[in-house]
């Protein structure tokens, strides 16, 4: 899932300067799971902003609404009724949701309320770990299910680098070198031959931004 972190209230408040009718829109999927932008967090942010504006002696109206997903038109369309009475909208979705709202409601001010950080797994209560960088050319088949693009800060394919220090990563000495983990896994499953071969330089052409994908079954539809 996509992991995000709420921006500091002060930063959100600064971006709202000059608006008196503000709507906070939560997203009930990824950012709700990572406790950054679900219904509960919408309520918390609304309370914090209300208190803060009141302490400044300002009368600001703050509305709250949460949709299932902000990255799907069918969930964003019904917001039209909610949004029309507000001057500015703070979206607590990831960057995808913020942009989607901004595009669909192009006469409205749509502001981000979270920093989108990574794609990762839930490792325990309140702990998330990045697991995938969406490189578009998955090498996990060769690296024992451990991603060197993600777990090695340098993302190198013929590791380890020369900066490995007592099997730990140069960047964080509490963390095992990604290539040590890959080696251990491949040794366990008898596939060390995978990393004896050279990995060629990656093809970054496939990473040209923005990425766009049309499922083959729908390609004709898209052209029309």
């Amino acid at each position, binding site marked *: 899932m996509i992991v995000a972190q709420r921006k500091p209230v002060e930063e959100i408040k600064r971006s709202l300067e000059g608006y008196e009718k503000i709507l906070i829109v939560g997203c009930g999927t990824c950012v709700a799971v990572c406790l950054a932008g679900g219904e509960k967090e919408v309520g918390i942010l609304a309370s914090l902003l209300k208190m803060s504006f009141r302490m400044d002696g300002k009368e600001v109206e703050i509305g709250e609404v949460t949709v299932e997903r902000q990255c799907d038109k069918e969930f964003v369309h019904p917001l039209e009724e909610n949004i029309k009475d507000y001057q500015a909208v703070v979206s607590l979705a990831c960057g995808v949701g913020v942009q989607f709202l901004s595009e669909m409601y192009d006469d409205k001010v749509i502001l981000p309320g979270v920093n989108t950080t990574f794609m990762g797994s839930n490792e325990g209560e309140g702990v998330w770990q990045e697991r995938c960088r969406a490189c578009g050319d998955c090498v996990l088949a060769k690296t024992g299910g451990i991603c060197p693009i993600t777990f090695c800060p*340098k993302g190198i394919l*013929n*590791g*380890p*680098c*020369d900066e490995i220090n007592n099997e730990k990563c*140069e960047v964080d000495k509490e963390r095992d070198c990604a290539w040590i983990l890959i080696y251990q896994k491949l*040794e366990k499953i008898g596939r060390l031959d995978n990393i*004896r071969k*050279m990995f060629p330089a990656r093809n970054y052409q496939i990473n040209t931004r923005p990425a766009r994908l049309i499922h083959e079954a729908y390609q004709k539809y898209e052209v029309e």
Partner: protein
Amino acid sequence: MSFKEALDSGKFVVTTQVGAPRGTNIDKMIQHIDLLKDKVDGLIIADNQSAEMGVPSLVACHLIKERGGESILQLTCRDKNRLALQSELIGACLLGINNLICITGDYVTRGNNIEAKPVFDLDAVQLLQTVRLLEQGKDLGGNELSGAVKFCTGAMLIPDPDTKELQLINLEKKIQAGAEFFLACATYNMEKFKQFMSYTQTFRVKIIAAVLLLASAEMARYWNDTVPGISITQELIDDLAGAKRDMALEKGIEIAVKYDKVKAILVNVMGGITRCDEVANGIVSARGDGNITVPLVIRMVGTNEKEGQEILAKAGIPFLKTMEEAAQKVVSLVQEGA
């Protein structure tokens, strides 16, 4: 003799690194180049060493070449993508710089511009492959070159025989990718180094061991913790930590003579904070213990230089004023002994 010829000759090859400053005042670097260029087989200039921005390796190598020295270019994958790396290799060749070390490179946050975007388009193995490809007249995009490059190419290694098979796989990949020589990280354990060398003898590559001078137990611990690949034994750290106050020099000499391969000791003092008279007293006392069985040469300049020299003269210990004289003296004493 070029660095490549020196490597091929089978002689004991000596290289050293010259620091590249952060700025346009290069007086000190030039002074170091001039002092060293005729005394070693190659002068290495690191490529933004430890992710700290400085004079480019290629420019410094060119200055070395202009002054008649043999330079070794270092290229890291941290700061340049494959276009920049390949064009730099062509540029180096045009400037007559044909010695090269390919490294992946320290991570950006290690250095002094920690907000920079790390590149790592290639890794060290892929960079070595790229050099060999350019030598065949092709670039990574599959395009023909209008003239090929030629390099004597090396890489880095950690000389630890206890190292995981993984690192040996990586070493073999580097050799397969085209590494002709390796620069080893600084090593402080001769037994382990010997074991490691016996492993590498199965390959036709040259290994250059590195020396970094240790000044204290704190420094040793700090390097162990922060400098990748460096492993200073607890025994040596304990030895250093065991030096009594004002007895550091005696301890240093004691550690030096512990190793039977040590043929002579050169004490080089450029006293700033260190006072020459204190050092001189230390030398006299160390010699008095009768532990020193190899020739001892001293070069001493700096704070309280006269007092220091008087102490040495009184004890009948010769000293020299320049590093050059001292180095020549120690070499001739070793040769006489051999």
